[in-house]
């Protein structure tokens, strides 16, 4: 607003942008190095500081020594994230619609308590659940399987879907439901034909949050799988040892985070439209 502030503003924005971008640039330049480019100390500019090589990127597709085959873990990560997100979104949307439109009462438990129960699951530290999950999945023979991970991730993502969607449905006027009811629709038809088609922005925001949290989880994948069902973050972290191949690490890290950078663009669009609201209580 005031002109004297402008240079300061630009400096602040530039400074933070550099901080945000720095690790990505470092990973990018490291991914083109070989052992020679790393062990001599920090180097930055290809051809000037070190001789670039594509070895790390080629190594991503065959599992030689000191590199990982990212194709399998990448596919596992996608399957687990997308199926868990889809299930959570479906169940969460149904539950959120119920909580937004109907009154539930079971003894002293009412809608607010039920909504709080869903959302409060985010407080649970993963480590508290890890041991029972480990024993439970072991009991059912689901350790180290995609199916087992999907079940666990649904528990993680369902609260997020409910949280976003309850808020969203509360902002859709009830008259919409009532008009459809008068036209003779059953509640399920109202939900399916009238409410859902009008909920796309909410569904996208909830979906984004589910995918981001699912894709970024490491702890459960790390404790509940071993070698058969390796997810991408686990595969990358397993490279992180005393003699770390920094180049493979950087290349695979970039592969792992790149899908989510696209998601950031989506989020910004919905932010602009005012669809990211918070149920701050």
């Amino acid at each position, binding site marked *: *607003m005031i002109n004297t502030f402008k240079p300061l*503003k630009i400096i602040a*924005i530039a400074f*933070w*942008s550099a*901080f*945000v971008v720095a690790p990505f640039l*470092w990973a990018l330049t*490291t991914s083109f190095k070989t052992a020679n480019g*790393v*062990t001599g*100390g*920090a180097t930055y500019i290809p051809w000037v500081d070190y001789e670039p090589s594509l070895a790390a990127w080629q190594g991503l597709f065959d599992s030689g020594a000191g590199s990982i085959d990212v194709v399998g873990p990448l596919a596992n990560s996608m399957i687990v994230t997308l199926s868990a997100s889809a299930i959570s979104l479906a*169940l969460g949307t*149904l*539950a959120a619609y*119920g909580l937004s439109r*109907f009154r*539930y009462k079971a003894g002293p438990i009412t809608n607010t308590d*039920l909504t709080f129960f*869903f959302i409060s699951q*985010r*407080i*649970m*530290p*993963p*480590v*508290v*659940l890890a*041991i*029972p999950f480990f*024993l*439970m999945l072991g009991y059912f023979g689901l350790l180290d399987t995609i199916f087992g991970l999907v079940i666990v991730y*649904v528990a993680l993502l*369902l*609260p997020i879907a*409910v949280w976003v969607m309850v808020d969203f449905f509360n902002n859709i006027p009830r008259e919409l439901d009532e008009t459809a009811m008068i036209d003779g629709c*059953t509640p*399920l038809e109202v939900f399916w034909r009238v409410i859902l088609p009008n909920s796309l922005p909410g569904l996208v925001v909830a979906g984004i949050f589910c995918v981001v949290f699912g894709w970024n989880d*490491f*702890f459960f994948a790390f404790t509940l799988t071993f070698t058969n069902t390796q997810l991408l973050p686990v595969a990358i*972290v397993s*490279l992180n040892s005393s003699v770390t191949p920094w180049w493979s*690490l*950087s290349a695979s*890290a970039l592969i792992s*985070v790149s899908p989510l*950078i696209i*998601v*950031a*663009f989506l*989020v*910004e669009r919905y*932010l*602009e439209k*005012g669809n*990211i609201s*918070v149920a*701050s*209580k």
Partner: protein
Amino acid sequence: MQGLTRYKLLFLLPGLLILLGIILFPLIFTIRVSFSGWDAIRPGLDWIGGTNYGRLFVDGRFWQSLSRLGAIALTSVMFEYLFGFGLALLVWHQVRFRRITRVLFLIPMMTTPVVMAVIWRTIFHESLGPANDIAGMLGLGTIPWLTHSVWATVVVILVDVWQWTPFMFLLLLAGLLSLPKEPFLAAAIDGAGPIRTFFNVTFPAMAPISVGALIIRLIEASKIMETVYVITSGGPGTSTETSSYYIFIRGLRDFQIGYAAALSVTYLVIMIVLLTIIAKILTNTLVKSGV
């Protein structure tokens, strides 16, 4: 009416039952296990009463991990709030390069924390990383980033701030964008400068959303462990070990399942109590005094 009940349950029950099944059963199981001596040598649900709880009461490493967690979480979240709010204000009325700056500011929270932590670890490598290269150019010498307890804590906080300031930025910018225009016009007509406008109009209006954002971040920060595992493995010594990480070591490394369960239950109860108190304090000071 009978029909409506059926529909009501049809909407709610699938999700509720699944969540109850996946979360509540493990929780009850954990409470039961915490009264057993289950470990690698004698796995099984025997009953040893409160022995595990007696042991954790005098387990200094656990209480240290809790206070350390408190220090790390509060410091990180405070910086994230300050920076997030600052950045949101900076781009609020920005016209040029608006989309690209916003996207850029959002990116870190989308990226996988452990994967970025692995990259950060190479950055802070004592002899080969760019952090010390730059420190050397500035004449600061070689900083023992990961091998000195204070510096290691600084790195853990810095990485958390990098990762999660965007989250604050997102919520606060969404809040700023949804503010009504009239109070700002009124302030402008009254001739209030930007600083007075901020403290008298913007900040009070943003108080509820600030409280919400702070609480969500504190909840998430109270669970911090993955980045610690990757960057420092709790070290040097146990100087960056957080509660979650300590429970993880006891439970899934030493397989002292019973003791880890007792730690988990205690940790969960303490976290719920503390976070409730903090939420109350924040709501009272920020929201009420602001009006």
